[in-house]
């Protein structure tokens, strides 16, 4: 299954990459979100996929094997961080569009010239 998920991760990155290379602000944002998904899923894939073994230790001590809890904790942190960043970016995109008046990224070039 790791192989399959690796392909999924790759696809997420590929589509994300394609989208962030578009000229539209909206697609850019979507691409960033897809890449964030890809990154999280990648971490998850690496954690060693185990079915039905959530890292919850019952009062009786529980099973012998659990899913690796650390990557899960990392993803959890990354999820929230990623969300915060995305939320900010969305607001920024909204404001930028409002002030600049276009969502065509090729026209957002005044600061570089």
């Amino acid at each position: 299954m790791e192989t399959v998920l690796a392909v999924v991760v790759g696809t997420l990155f590929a589509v994300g990459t394609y989208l962030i290379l578009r000229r539209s602000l909206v697609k850019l944002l979507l691409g960033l979100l897809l890449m964030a998904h890809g990154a999280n899923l990648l971490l998850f894939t690496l954690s060693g996929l185990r079915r039905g073994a959530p890292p919850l230790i019952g009062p009786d001590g529980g099973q012998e094997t659990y899913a690796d809890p650390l990557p899960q904790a990392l993803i959890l942190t990354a999820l929230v961080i990623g969300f915060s960043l995305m939320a900010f970016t969305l607001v920024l995109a909204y404001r930028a569009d409002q002030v600049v008046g276009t969502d065509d990224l090729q026209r957002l070039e005044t600061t570089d010239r």
Partner: protein
Amino acid sequence: MLIIALFSAFLLALVTLPAYRWLGQRATWLLSAATAVLFGWFLWQAPAVSTGHVLSVTYPWIPRLNAAFALRLDGLSLLFALLVTGIGALIILYGGYYLGDDADLSRFQSYMFLFMGSMLGVVLADDLVTLFVFWELTSVSSYLLIGFRHEDEKARYGALKALLITGGGGLAMLAGLVMLGMAGGSFRIGELITQTALSTHPLYTAFVLLILLGAFTKSAQVPFHIWLPDAMTAPTPASGYLHSATMVKAGIYLLARLQPALGGTDLWHLVVGIVGLVTMLLAAYLAFGQNDLKALLAYTTISSLGWAVALIGIGSSLALKAAMVVIVAHSVYKAALFLLVGIVEHETGTRDLRQLGGLARVLPVTAVVAALVTMSMAGLPPLFGFLAKETLFETALTATPAVLPALWVAGAAFVMAIFAVAYSLLFYFGVFFGSDAPSFDEVHEPAWPMLLGPAILAALSVLLAFPPLRTASTELLAAAASQSYGDAVSVSLALWHGITTPLLMTIAAVASGVVLWAVRKPVRRWQAGAIARIRLDVLYDGSITLLNRLATGLTARFQTGTLSDYLLMILGAMIVLVSYAMITGSGTITVSTSLAGIPTFELLAAVLMILSAVAVAGTSTRLGAIAALGVVGFFMTLFFVIYSGPDLALTQLMVETLTVILLLLVFYFLPRVFEDRSTRLARFRDIAIAAGVGTLVTLLTLMVSPLEGGVVASQSEGLTVSEFFLQQSVPAAFGENVVNVILVDFRALDTLGEITVLVIAVLGAYALVKLRLSDDHDAEDGS
């Protein structure tokens, strides 16, 4: 004491500003006197130093680089130090009156002292790093002085040109010096000049050439001489001081200083000798073609510098003696000439040869003084300049190395001498005599302190040629030359040796020079065309233009302003670097293509997830794309559920939903255009990049996953990190949900950061929405 002497100059630079504010013009005298005291102190050291005594001080500075703050006063340093302080004292005085009514006088004098200190530092340094520090400082002070009239664009141009050429050469030299220091195992000049094996070092050619580059740019040797004429935009005292008497001699000083260590090889003889000779000749020729008096003097300066350089290139004891003589002679008469030109310009308002003439009538004293120094420049007896030329001829005829045939040297010297006579006549008669002179009736002699400097220097030009000053100076010159030669050099100077070849050459040169002057009009007219053709400045200007164009072009290519381009380059770099690492590295990638054991519905879900991801890019509507994104999020959740990450699934859902809602809110305001605006080609390119990134990420994931079973055990307790968490969660941290325990206990710091990020994001977004310092594009949207 040496240190105090050195830093007193810098101190004076600081004192200048308040001094002028409090004392007015009296400060000029005070400062000049202070400089004279400095001169006196150096002079006082002369007897001891002439006998070979060396004063030196060393402080460790950068032990890690073997660099020390080391000073050394020997014959060579002393000679230069005397020139710097002696001429300095006169020029400070002169400058105080020359710029008497200028509001920026104090600033000017301050720069002059800054230069003086730096130049003293150069000549006193006993350590290559110390030397270089002061070397660059002279460039900076020169920059400030050339650009002193900074509202004038030409001044700025000249200043930059000088700085770039000398500064650039200086940096090349730095590389050479560092290599030299490494080759010689020390940065101490005193130690390096005693070494003999340097010329066989494998890097010899490299560091010699680099150091020469520094010296040549500083001393305005062809083809780097182009900055000096433009540097004439500096106020005249500065031109006389820096760009004639002292700073431009820094390169010569360096060559003379390092001659014992680096000289004696064919490379040295050839490069230094040829460059010197060419400079000497070319500049003399060009000088004759000038109309601007300062430009004329600038070219004669270059010529004389070439003269000294050529002598150092020859490198025999006689040659070095001749070099010392010409250095002193030139400094004395050329400084005076500049000051005189300054007077002329100060009084008449012009320094164009074509507008001047007949000034001997209104400026008699000036004319007399000028006559003396011009004669010295022309190399006429009984002046010190004559001695310089005699020794040059003598050297050319007797003591040249094999690679520099005597005929070349003698021929070049002779031709130069002809031009020297011719341009001297051109200068003197053009300014002070001439029938077509316009009337300068209102012109009068300058304030006497302005004449004092030139007069003293003119007197010196005479007196140095006769005892007792001649004998006194020979000792010093001998000491200097022997430092440069690396062995004792005996110096005896006399005006009359009998009828010798050099004397005959001088007579012939003077005669030819007079003839040349007589036919000056056609010659100069012809030159005007020729000069236009061989201006090397085109090279400089061209390269600056080219540089600017290159910079603009290149930057426009990189910094296109389009985010997609930036991302393209970044992702391209990623693909190149990572795939190169993958291709060249060793190790296997295990790809299990077997799908056995994978539940069908998981496969299906994976396929569907891929489809929805593609759908995000493929749908033609924004909402469709968001919906597809939402589906991708649902599948993420699903996989988190399947592979035992309930907390992840919950958080993912929450985040996903919030994101989707935010997206909707934001998109409500965004324009509706959603079609792809890129060209077909761009799309293909992007697909290729995307495929590359996707493939790499997949491969990376695949490469890591097989290791999963064999995660390296940690050092303590034989546990892997996750085993530790699972084991310790309940007993040590009293939590059953290990993920939670990690978040709030084992790795609480991450969580702290995470929460902070959330808070900041809210803060930032709030401010972004609320605080609007600029007018919005659409006012109605601002509600």
